């Protein structure tokens, strides 16, 4: 209930989109530029390419932060 309150996900689930068949971590990663094509927005967390779990959250968070920093440096 607390997660439902703060995250607004169905039943408060903390997991991202299910990994299934052709829609798997490798293919999501390979096709991330196609799937996530809004400029200046960087994604992270359980719904992003690596799927759910703490390590995925940390790693995609780091990836997003690095991407944003690189972008800011480039724009300077």
């Amino acid at each position, binding site marked *: *209930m607390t997660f*439902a309150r703060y995250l*607004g996900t*169905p*039943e408060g689930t903390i997991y991202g989109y299910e990994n299934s068949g*052709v*829609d798997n971590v490798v*293919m999501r990663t390979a*096709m991330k530029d196609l799937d996530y094509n809004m400029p200046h927005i960087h994604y992270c967390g359980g719904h992003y390419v690596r799927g759910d779990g703490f390590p995925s959250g940390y790693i995609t968070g780091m990836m997003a932060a690095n991407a944003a920093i690189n972008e800011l440096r480039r724009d300077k």
Partner: protein
Amino acid sequence: MAKQKTGIEQLSAGRFLKLAADRLKFVSAASDAPVSDLKDHLQNQLAEALHPHVQFLTVGEVIVHSDDMKSYILRADPQRGTKQPAWFSAGQYLSIAVFIDGKMYCRPYSIASSPRDTLDGFYMITVKRVQGGVVSGYILDNWKVGTSAAASAPLGEFTYEPLRDAKTVIGIAGGSGITPFRSFAKAISEGDEDFNLVLLYGSRTLNDAVFSDEIAAMAKDCDKIKLVNVLSDEKVRGKENGFITAKLIRKYAPKEGDYSIFLCGPQAMYRFADKEIETLNLRRKFVRHELFGEYFHPENDAEYHGDAEKTYQVTVRMAGKTTVIPCKGNTSLLRAMEDAGLNPPSDCRSGRCGWCHSQLLAGEVYTPASVDGRREADLIYGYIHPCCAFPETDVTIDVPPMPGL
């Protein structure tokens, strides 16, 4: 026997390269209709019922204690989408939003009714006129049966927690600070809270002691509740006379074992009672305060380096819009934003809840130590609570917009 292929040898580059095209086909063929509506999920329904962003209420009844103090029964307003008031823990408050000349002002009011009353569809709050106050006067002079009101979900931590608090609570109430204790007493008598409440209720005269008869009646029927009137300006047989001192607390405290002290009242009462309580040498967790309330007169503090009478320039960035507003040195940034009609977010107005949490981008502000509820990360990254931040120079702040209203 033919050699069996294992691991990487089984991979076919052709099949692998096809995966991307297969996935694209799979994704394109999928329906773009939502899998389900959040409203159909039990946990989401529960979250919305217990923690609504906003509760729409209507004044159902006005109880007049005096010209300067009235209680309001607030009923859920299903026409505007609130079917039932949210359940709460005795001791919590509602942040009531009122619109005066198109400007939104929020003020916290303790809930005086019991949690069980929400099942009958109502809350009760008690409003006392604050000299020079904007909202209390407006409510007292304008609210009547049928007036529409908007409130937050129940908020606050002035609640009984059996793992932390002692089995006996000495309640110290001053003036309209009686309201959460009425809720505690009613919740105990209705069986929703389980602790012994010894209520030391300070007032000038017995006549000023609102809800005293009602709580006395509850105490008569329930041996977990005890009411002690402490009258400062009047001598009445069978009632205590004077102020709530350490000696008086000791007189009514359990002779053996721990006890907690819960305080709710005006700031002057906290200042007096805190000094008395210090001499009792209680563990820190056993002394709990309701919100301090808005901080006034920062200029009386040695740590304040601004000019109370000077009007500073405050640049407010909110949701992509930048507005420059005036703010006097003795006025909180929150009040200045409200006066300018910016509808800033606020709930507790005492530096505790974090709802007005904003970033200070330039300039200096003063936050009194007694209401500084910031964490270390806030100090490092320059965050402030505008409800208790006073400008010492011109400042620029980044404020989140108020959601829900």
